[in-house]
């Protein structure tokens, strides 16, 4: 009892709000001789929508694999709300929701069955799971498709189901790896708006990895990853200013050319 109080006392509201949802410090990783990530450091706070911008092969997938602990990082640190992923994987993973680049839904199972499988992986079942599923599929506007097989859904609808699935266990950090690949403009916009709204309304921290420069929001935060190294990070206007560019595309070109020169 006293211990609980002591814990509560030590973490003041101010301290809690500044605690990073995701803190990556000095992260390096290599596959044999090929260095995939080089001394990468950044932090994302609750309520922040951060775009991780990089071309294919920049190291985005490696970064995602390390944050979701597909395999361990060797140099540096990854903390999710203060939990180092290697030391407290369970606490860290419980707070992360992930949408992978490739669809991981079971096409032969219904939307509801897919979602309840995911709930069970987080130890959620029964009425609690059913209520959460109802809430999430209503939010993505697919409540009437609950019993339909995923195979019958369009690409955009499947992506929405994956976002619903990633949110079932109420994570505080949402990671999306190229979530809009292969979608039409309307579906892309819906996803972006939906996730930005989650960010605003629920204080969710979001890391949105993409190679599409136009997905960078003018008011958002951006991380520019190129050949395994972070070339720039911060609010979009500041990044553009530092690169002496008037658009994000020009800034990206300037940054990556500097690097190549």
């Amino acid at each position, binding site marked *: 009892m006293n211990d609980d109080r002591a814990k509560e006392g030590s973490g003041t509201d101010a301290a809690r709000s500044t605690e990073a949802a995701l803190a990556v410090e000095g992260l390096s990783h290599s596959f044999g001789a090929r260095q*995939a990530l080089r001394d990468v450091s950044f932090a994302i706070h609750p309520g922040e929508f951060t775009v991780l911008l990089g071309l294919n092969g920049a190291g985005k*997938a490696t970064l995602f*694999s390390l944050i*979701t602990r597909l395999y361990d990082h060797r140099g540096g640190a990854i903390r999710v709300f203060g939990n180092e992923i290697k030391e407290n994987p369970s606490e860290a*993973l419980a707070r992360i929701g992930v949408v992978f680049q490739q669809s991981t839904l079971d096409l032969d199972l219904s939307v509801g069955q897919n979602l*309840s*499988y995911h709930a069970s992986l987080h*130890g959620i079942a029964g009425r609690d799971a059913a209520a959460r599923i109802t809430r999430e599929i209503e939010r993505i506007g697919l409540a009437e498709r609950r019993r339909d097989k995923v195979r019958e859904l369009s690409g955009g609808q499947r992506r929405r189901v994956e976002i619903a699935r990633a949110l079932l266990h109420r994570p505080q950090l949402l990671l999306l790896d190229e979530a809009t690949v292969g979608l039409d403009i309307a579906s892309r916009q819906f996803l972006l708006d939906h996730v930005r709204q989650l960010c605003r309304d629920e204080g969710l921290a979001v890391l949105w990895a993409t190679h599409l420069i136009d997905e960078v929001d003018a008011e958002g935060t951006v991380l520019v990853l190129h050949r395994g190294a972070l070339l720039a990070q911060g609010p979009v206007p500041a990044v553009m200013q530092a690169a002496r560019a008037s658009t994000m595309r020009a800034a990206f070109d300037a940054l990556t050319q500097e690097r190549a020169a």
Partner: protein
Amino acid sequence: MRPIQYYRCLAGIVRREGLRFLNQRGRFIAALVRPLVWLLIFATGFHFVLGVSIIPPYETYVPYEVYIAPGLIGMIQLFNGMQSSLSMVYDREMGSMRTLMVSPLPRWFLLTSKLLAGVIVSVIQAYVFLAIAYFWEIQPPWWGYLTVLPALVASGLMLGALGLLLSSAIRQLENFAGVMNFVIFPMFFASSALYPLWRVQEASLSLYYICQLNPFTHAVELIRFALYGEVNGPSAAVVLLSLLVFMALAIYGYDPARGLIARRVTE
């Protein structure tokens, strides 16, 4: 994580495997047709070519169909073990495996749950096969249907663990044809599934030793004896030991710190 959450996770994984199985009718039918083709065509063709002398656990001369039935059950479990684990890898660079592994529950528990779910499906397939085979005079004593259950569970676990191990370790096997050629066919043919080992010994001593070393031989023998209410001690020991080794290596293979998975390039 509380014990109830472990239970819910296991139940969810088993339910998903069951639903997938029911929804993929093609997979269910293929899993049954394969051994039935062997039974109805191959065994009938060889009925008069191969005579099987009286060897334990049989007490009389048995027709060739009866001899190969346990081998065909083993075949069902071999295919199932490879399919349920490797299918995850083929889901385009481990899609559903990654979903499984972002669960906050310990990885060894997730892999073991996945293994158990696959075994439940393979045991059901084996019983459906036995029910159909009854009409082709493969009629073990009634209690044999009960005593075979632990053997089916043990051999299913062992072959499923082998599938898990392969899924963690091997990236060259790009498709199921590779697994057929390099794992399933050699294991199936270099075993006691199709011919008794004393006949193999007469033909080739080195093949006989290979068959003896093949854990699939012992899975088949375990099932063969169990169908007649008998325990084949050495085979049971080999199956259980292989299970432990394969599972330990699979868990090692999926270990984020040391495992082979870390050497996979995911981009």
